[in-house]
């Protein structure tokens, strides 16, 4: 009986370890190639770690390529999207959480519908709508599009965080003479800070990863975001693997930072989002 239990525990830990290796190996390989000097790239192709490491690829990418511009563009687009979405979604999420009103059912239905249809369907019409407004090839255009795309999920997410806060708090404040909006801003919002952080993180990561609309709407290098820049770089100069992977590692940094920020709320947040959206 004891040996059986020991064996089971061992198998359990081994399975977990396998999952961890599978999850991390591709990222490890990205890092490995990015620090491998060019002359060792092919001779030590399948070695797990090069005999000599270098940061020259990172240096080159940061000083001699357009990647700092792509990085900045992505940072602006994702940051602006995350901030705008979080502000607007906390307002709409609050409305869904605290009020009962006639249009509520329709608002929820509208937001659910937007989660169901293929976004590829919008590629052509959005391009046609934005181009006379001068919003193609512009970061503002991308921010507007990403903000709308992320709004429904963010609204449901914020709503579930508001639902977790007792109503008595703002009722007490309103008896003391505060308007509902004052109660919302001064009492409820500070209590929802973890939810706000999670929403910021989710939206930032989503905007940082978006590829298809960025490819369609952006044509020049000046307004290219990281995905577009990396992809054009790969299809044009698919030879310098060290540099490409160094750029890849750089693209990974903000996403991983935000992941660490939201990691705690992942199970809670995704469940709320998945059940409703």
């Amino acid at each position, binding site marked *: 009986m004891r040996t059986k239990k020991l064996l089971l525990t061992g198998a359990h830990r081994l399975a977990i370890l396998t999952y961890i290796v599978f999850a991390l190996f*591709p990222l490890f390989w990205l890092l490995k*190639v990015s620090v491998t000097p060019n002359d060792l790239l092919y001779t030590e192709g*399948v070695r797990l770690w090069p005999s000599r490491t270098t940061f020259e690829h990172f240096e080159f990418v940061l000083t001699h390529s357009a990647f700092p511009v792509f990085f900045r563009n992505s940072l602006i687009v994702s940051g602006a999207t995350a901030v705008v979405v979080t502000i607007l979604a906390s307002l*709409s999420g609050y*409305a869904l959480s605290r009020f009962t009103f006639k249009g509520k059912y329709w608002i929820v239905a509208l937001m659910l519908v937007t989660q169901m249809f293929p976004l590829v369907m919008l590629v052509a019409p959005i391009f046609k*709508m934005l181009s006379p407004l001068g919003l193609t090839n512009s970061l503002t255009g991308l921010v*507007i599009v990403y903000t709308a795309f992320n709004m429904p999920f963010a609204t449901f997410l914020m709503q579930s965080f508001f639902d977790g806060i007792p109503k008595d708090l703002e009722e007490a404040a309103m008896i003391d003479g505060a308007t509902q909006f004052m109660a919302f801003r001064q009492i409820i919002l500070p209590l929802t800070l973890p939810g706000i952080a999670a929403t910021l993180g989710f939206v930032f990561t989503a905007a940082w*990863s978006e590829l*298809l609309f960025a490819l369609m709407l952006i044509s020049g290098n000046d307004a290219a975001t990281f995905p577009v820049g990396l992809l054009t770089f790969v299809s044009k100069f698919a030879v310098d693997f060290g540099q490409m992977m160094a750029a*890849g590692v750089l693209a990974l940094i903000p996403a991983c930072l935000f992941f660490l920020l939201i990691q705690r709320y992942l199970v809670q947040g995704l469940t709320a989002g998945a059940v409703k959206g």
Partner: protein
Amino acid sequence: MDATVITYDTRPDRRPLLQRIAHASEPYLYSAPALILIVAVMLVPLVLGISYAFRDIQILNPFSGGFIGLDHFRELSQDQSFYRALKNTLWWTGGSVLLQFVFGLILALLLDKPFYGRGLAQALVFLPWAVPTFLAGLNWAWLFNPVIGPLPHWLYALGILSEPNNILSDPQLAMWGPIVANVWWGIPFFAITLLAALQAIPRDLYEAAAIDGAGPAQRFMSITLPFLAPTIAITVLLRTVWISNFADLIVVMTNGGPADRTQIVASYIFTQAFKRLDFGYASAIALVLLVLLLVYSMLIVLLRQTLLNRG
């Protein structure tokens, strides 16, 4: 405007009314900015997109734009690439969802048991989900590249490949590349949702079953699975729809090639819009995809309803 001024003058009890209006409109004021954006950037383009399907819209042709009725759909019914893309979509979606679900469920079951270092293990196995999809695609494309990646050599050593070649350029095997990348990236999503559902199962049920002499397999079949079933149904439904629309990995890894073997409907729409700038035809394909997905979703919902009614 005038009317308000008049009521202002003649009716001293206007404040309660105005307050009532203000009170009734409050939730709408809160949700207005979000709604306006969603309508302007998602709903209006959706309607436009549906209308494009019946119009001749080519960006490089200034004389296009007229209504052409069902011409696009007639062309589509003859389009062999479309049928191939439809078949590839089934293969891509079915393979990805099944593997993601199976490995996600196993991972959720493994993480449901308390053990030392569970928090850290959970953070590490969920990490792929945070990797931007374009990067996940490139990362796996590089791993499959025999010049720079280890996978072809390992598969060769294991005897799975007869030569250490890039499977992404082999028409027979190419689809496995994006599927593997998708499974790697998507396991955390299933694991997270299923783990949350697992943790909601009351523990004393298991204890009672154990006292009654039920083995682990029996407990899994008669407690865990029935409790998970609603979550599984809704997650699989949502993921199926989502993955069949998910073209990023394919655009990045193979761009539909070799010989259209990895072209799914979503990437085909994107190619038509992006490369040929034929927005009318692209919208027609998108409309067909939308209808197919709606039919699928309704079938699943109906199936779930009948199952629930029987239970």
